């Protein structure tokens, strides 16, 4: 069998990981290769971590249809995901991990270095500058081009033009800029994976469920953490807050509660970082800050 490259994309619903995977497959097909692109997500919505996959084969049909569990390449679109999802899970030795982060390569390497190539690019800044939105799906394709020859820029241009029309040129520019600015570290066979505990859902087996799948514990969704969906975090300036409670009334997660001193506070176990509270507070007591995890 000839060379098969498997890619796993980590993004959040709404960030365009699926588009990245589709464009990658289209570019490979244009080049005469065989390729697949498909997403994997549950009923979680915009903001929730999602996966997308590619398989690219030089010259043979691809018969496998299942999710990619042992990728050659992992691409992470959102830096916040690094701390809530095990992005290097199953990543092959000698593979590549490509991360969008504002951190320097040396610093990222301490945390995520391993027996794989490590590539870092500040795609969010590039996207904001060139596309005016923090959507990095096309930008990260530039970083992919840098570390892998699974696809080539020449074949990517047409799919981007078809997908983005008037906005294609700027997306191509962002892609090229990322290619230039991606810094790459070679695999370090000695470094071992930093152990992290990732929140995991445990599922009951079907035998444990009540007949008819009746859920007998009211409101048990409370135990489900939606805080991981957050890319931005609300911060309160108490000097400005008049304790009116408007922020709490408008929160779709109903997760804003008064603390002991009566000031509102978001329960970060649930807060999805939508920014409604900050937008609606009339005294501008709330600002949305970059989510810092760990």
């Amino acid at each position: 069998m000839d060379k098969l490259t498997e890619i796993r994309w980590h993004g959040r619903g709404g960030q365009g990981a699926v588009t990245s995977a589709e464009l990658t497959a289209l570019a490979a097909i244009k080049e005469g290769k065989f390729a697949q692109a498909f997403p994997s997500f549950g009923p979680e919505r915009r903001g929730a971590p999602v996966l997308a996959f590619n398989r690219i084969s030089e010259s043979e049909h691809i018969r496998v249809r299942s999710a990619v569990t042992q990728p050659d390449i992992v691409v992470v679109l959102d830096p916040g995901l690094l701390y809530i999802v095990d992005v290097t899970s199953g990543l092959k030795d000698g593979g590549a991990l490509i991360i969008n982060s504002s951190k320097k390569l040396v610093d990222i390497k301490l945390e995520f270095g391993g027996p794989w190539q490590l590539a870092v690019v500040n795609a969010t800044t590039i996207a904001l500058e060139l596309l005016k939105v923090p959507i990095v799906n096309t930008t990260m394709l530039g970083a992919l081009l840098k570390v892998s020859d699974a696809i080539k820029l020449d074949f990517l241009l047409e799919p981007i033009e078809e997908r983005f029309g008037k906005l294609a040129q700027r997306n191509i520019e962002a892609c090229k800029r990322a290619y230039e600015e991606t810094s790459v570290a070679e695999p370090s066979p000695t470094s071992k994976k930093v152990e992290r505990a990732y929140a995991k859902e445990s599922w009951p087996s079907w035998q444990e469920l009540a007949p008819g799948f009746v859920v007998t514990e009211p409101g048990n969704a409370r135990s489900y953490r939606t805080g991981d969906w957050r890319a931005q975090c609300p911060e309160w300036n108490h000097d400005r807050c008049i304790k009116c409670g408007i922020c709490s009334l408008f929160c779709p997660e109903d997760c804003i509660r008064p603390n002991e001193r009566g000031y509102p506070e978001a329960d970060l176990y649930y807060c999805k970082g939508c920014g409604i509270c900050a937008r609606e507070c009339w005294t501008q007591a709330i600002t949305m800050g970059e989510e810092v995890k760990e």
Partner: protein
Amino acid sequence: METLGIYVPRLVTKRQGFTPGHRACSGCGEALAVKLVMKALGRNVIVVMSTGCMEVISTQLPYTAWEVPWIHTLFENSAIVASGIEAGMKALNRKGTPLPKAKVVAIGGDGATFDIGLGAISGAFERGHDFLYVCLDNEAYMNTGIQRSSATPFGASTTTQPAGKVSMGQSTWKKNMPAIAIAHDIPYVATACPSYPFDLMNKVKKAAEIEGPTYVHILSVCPTGWRIPTDMTIRLGRLAVETGVFPLYEVENGKYTLNYDPPRLRPVEDYLKPQGRFRHLTPKMVKKIQQRVSVEYASLKEKAASG
């Protein structure tokens, strides 16, 4: 009733029957609508829900975000199941098995209400069941990926009628669902929007207290389907009302009341511009929408003036 204390001076229950941990999109106006509806209703309710976003995000096995009796129904069936529950409770009471008083509340999206469940709703209204029907109108079939419904406004781009070289998005005008409910001569019909939370909660409370079929129509901004930033949900709802695109009114036993009537409406452009689904609109189409909105608003105002 547990309340938020110094928070929001008026009474707002802290714990309602719809919990956090639900999986709606960040910034979902429909989830906010459900939260406010449940705050207004309290705990003595039986909720019957049509499938759609709010069902899928709140009841993923083995979890539920509901702390009140809640039953899933088929997409088109919530008014039918609600009728059955209400009739069943009446029958049990009559046959000597007294039940605690509980209001039956059916909830459905615009697809469930305007399209596939319309006949069932009409039947339940006509038979006069004692229940409240809440329509969560996000102006498309969002759960399955933004397909157009008969609630989708003229000009909006959806995945089944996308704007492009050939099509300019939705080619028909939004069906006037509250008017259809009113035509059934039921005791109470109201429109509401989470951007006006007290108005919404008051209307839901009122509708639940009235005996007989009642209908509350809630415009629920959907950042994903409307293609707007997640923090703009409340703003957009407010703009819908301030431009007259979605007037807040109620009809009690045939008497119309306009709940929010600004001295001057804002131009519809203010509402259309921030939304990605209207990005392609030409000035000519905007003008067409403005004309229609002005005429409909004037007609509503007239009805309110004549009582």
